[in-house]
């Protein structure tokens, strides 16, 4: 064989690319755009590279798995690459901290990708989501079913050539509505007057719902001694008082003991990402409010940070402080709310929750004052916040953070932490070791309650969090009680940050940097920004092709990915405990299903 043919069959390994010395041929290129860098990975070497990164380079947290369909991409950076899809992985290190390693695996249509679940079990739900919305099959995935839509749904909605029933145009503002304001009722175009589409040749009379294999149906059988007991499958939800919304837990139980538990979601799938691709960049801001609807301010912040990376805007000093103040106020809202509802799930119906959310109304008054809305604040903008604080706002906030909130948190601590029932139901229940939690991509208070001091505000500071003096509380137990108590401790740290921020905030100044305006075209490229939302790592992955609309808009939601741990945490406990275990993960369904 001549030298030339050898090069043709096995391309030379470019040793200037990272990691190629350890895993030869794994990294085939670098996507150098104006923003963050990404590495292209050969699909057959993906697992070897992931294993290397996990074991040797300490990248132990597979934060985000998502996909981009580049078939309609207009940018220059993508020219000459024939593959249609890119599966995008973001890896972080809980030991080293710092920024991500971003991997792209290029996939042609109808090809498979090796599943990362054997290296990072936390890829489970995210790969199912990619399969559901893009139709990419992951080889070796233990349970590749649809997750957000239902089994039998036609097509894969986030493919660029898939159009919804109410499809008008590729991008907003639609011609029918702007500038004249005329409006077509798209219901009228469909004979059944609804936003449903059916494939041609489909006969509704002969329709049979597909029978799907759900793992709980084949759970291991545990007989107690000679007594041959039969395990049964019990379905909690989607309408169930314990599930915090529309969520379903399929459990296999022996008596009251859980043998296997499988979360079923998608009952609140509101197509954030498809709608987000049609919207202009700014139009997505109010939609982020509705992700985790208990803390809209944190969601706003994460999205603003991601787009600011593309736009390269400087945020004014006063706006930085306002952002931190708002984000920390929502953290207190969220943590007190979640404490109240953990107690609700423990059976202390309503009374502790009423105490816990009492201060929330005071904070919501402050939000309403600056933004005009209690819940859906829509307050942040790219380059700052939409309007300045109202006169006297800071004094009212100071009264709250110096006087009322510390007292309210002390009161909760006093009433609940020493409570015999809370201890008996919480201690040692829902235990999962820290390594397992990280392997399952869990983030937020859950891993800090397992003794890992991983908080994005410290390990990869954003905004101005590096200026404040605060601690990352950790507890070693990793059980329900620790997850309850860590939230109390974190709320106290938030009060500390708020006191400093309200002391140091500049009295006057700009609150909105950049050029402003409703429409702008960010540079071509992709950006991932993450914030420590109250529920964990909230990441926004945006891809721009220099248009007024995002090419791809993906939300890495903590609630969704933390649900990876629900099954492993619940096995072996009673069904009444599973309810609290779910409550202590603290999910919001708007964010789970998006």
């Amino acid at each position, binding site marked *: 064989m001549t030298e030339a043919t050898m090069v043709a069959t096995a391309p030379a390994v470019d040793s200037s690319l990272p990691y190629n010395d350890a895993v030869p041929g794994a990294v085939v290129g670098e996507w150098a755009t104006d923003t963050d860098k990404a590495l292209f990975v050969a699909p057959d070497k993906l697992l070897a590279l992931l294993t290397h990164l996990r074991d040797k380079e300490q990248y132990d947290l597979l934060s985000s798995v998502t996909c981009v369909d580049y078939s309609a991409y207009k940018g220059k950076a993508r020219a000459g690459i024939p593959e249609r899809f890119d599966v995008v992985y973001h890896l972080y290190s809980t030991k080293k901290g710092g920024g991500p390693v971003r991997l792209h695996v290029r996939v042609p249509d109808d090809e498979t990708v090796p599943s990362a679940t054997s290296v990072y079990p936390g890829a489970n739900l995210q790969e199912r989501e990619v399969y559901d919305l893009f139709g990419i099959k992951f080889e070796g995935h233990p349970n590749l079913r649809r997750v957000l839509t239902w089994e*039998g749904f036609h097509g894969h909605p986030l493919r660029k050539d898939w159009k919804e029933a109410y499809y008008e145009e590729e991008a907003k503002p639609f011609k029918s509505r702007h500038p004249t304001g005329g409006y077509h009722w798209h219901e009228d175009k469909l004979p059944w007057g609804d936003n449903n589409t059916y494939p041609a040749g489909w006969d509704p009379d002969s329709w049979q719902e597909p029978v799907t294999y759900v793992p709980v149906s084949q759970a291991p059988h545990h007989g107690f001694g000679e007594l041959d007991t039969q395990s049964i499958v019990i379905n909690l939800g989607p309408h169930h008082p314990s599930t915090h919304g*529309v969520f379903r837990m399929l459990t296999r139980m022996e008596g009251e003991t859980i043998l296997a538990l499988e979360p079923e979601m998608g009952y609140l799938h509101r197509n954030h990402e498809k709608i987000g691709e049609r919207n202009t960049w700014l139009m997505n801001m109010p939609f982020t409010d509705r992700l985790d609807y208990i803390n809209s301010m944190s969601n706003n912040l994460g999205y603003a940070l991601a787009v600011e990376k593309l736009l390269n805007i400087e945020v004014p000093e006063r706006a930085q402080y306002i952002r931190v103040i708002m984000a920390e106020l929502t953290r207190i809202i969220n943590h007190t709310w979640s404490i109240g509802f953990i107690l609700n799930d423990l059976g202390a119906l309503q009374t502790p929750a009423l105490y816990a959310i009492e201060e929330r109304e005071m904070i919501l008054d402050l939000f309403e004052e600056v933004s005009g809305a209690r819940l859906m604040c829509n307050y942040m903008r790219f380059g700052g916040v939409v309007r300045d604080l109202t006169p006297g706002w800071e004094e009212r906030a100071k009264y709250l953070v110096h006087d009322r909130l510390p007292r309210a948190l002390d009161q909760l601590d006093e009433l609940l932490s020493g409570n015999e029932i809370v201890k008996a139901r919480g201690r040692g229940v829902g235990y999962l070791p820290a390594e397992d939690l990280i392997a399952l991509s869990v983030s937020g208070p859950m891993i800090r309650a397992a003794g890992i001091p991983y908080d994005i505000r410290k390990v990869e500071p954003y905004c101005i969090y590096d200026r404040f003096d605060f601690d990352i509380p950790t507890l070693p137990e990793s059980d329900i009680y620790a997850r309850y108590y860590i939230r109390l401790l974190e709320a106290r740290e938030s009060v500390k940050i708020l006191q400093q921020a309200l002391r140091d905030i500049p009295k006057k100044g700009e609150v909105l940097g950049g050029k402003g305006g409703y429409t702008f075209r960010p540079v071509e490229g992709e950006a991932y920004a993450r914030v420590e939302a109250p529920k964990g790592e909230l990441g926004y992955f945006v891809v721009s092709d220099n248009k007024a609309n995002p090419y791809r808009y993906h939300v890495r939601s903590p609630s969704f990915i933390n649900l990876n741990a629900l099954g492993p945490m619940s096995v072996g406990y009673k069904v009444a405990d599973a309810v609290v275990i779910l409550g202590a993960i603290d999910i919001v369904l708007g964010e789970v299903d998006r």
Partner: protein
Amino acid sequence: MTTTPVVKFSELKQEQLSEFLHDRIQVPEDLQANVMVTTLDKVYNWSRKSSMWPLLFGLACCAIEMIATAASRYDLARFGMEVMRPSPRQSDLMIVSGTVTKKMVPAIVRIYNQMAEPRYVLSMGACATGGGPFKEGYTVVSGIDKYIPVDVYVPGCPPTPEALIYGLLKLHEKVERQSITTVPWYRKGASEAIPVPVLGPDIFDPRKVQIIKEQTLGSAGAAKGGAAGKARLQPQPIPEDVKARIHAAQAKYRAQKQPA
């Protein structure tokens, strides 16, 4: 300039709404401290509206405001409504609080069918009313009233607790106007269950099977792929044979439910 007096609906129904009928029915003087004369409707409606139990049923963001309404500051207990029942059998009012998705609609219709009459539905927020900001989404239903009847719509995204309370008071007004002689749940025969939608390639209402078939199996469907065509097609009434089939299915369902 002529002035026309504004006649409110409540004024037209004054007869029914009047507190006591003392002017017409004479109560002897010595009994007036103990005897009160009113209509049966008035007592019946007053008792129903004063203890209307909502279903503990949160769908999305609006559920948070619904909880806030029930909590300390807004205190839904003032209206006798703080007892939220998770079981549809024990509740009178379904507050559809949030975005209704296609995956969830079969469950909602089942829950509605399970509620005992008299039952009311309050559509809370823009999403439950008409799809709201997510209307264009592919798994979002453009309003719960496509499937179940709604009594009161509360606008807002999300409605503030004040708005929800206003909507609930409007519902109370509606209850007060009902008469025991005309309410549907005392009529002969069982009330009809709403057919549960089915999740196919997309969700479909069993009542609309014929229209869907014409589109997907007919020439129009084959040409256009079942998606939105250029012609503005109007919704058509349900054909008789489809109606007959639905009635047959309902009769079968009822026969199954009959106790042995």
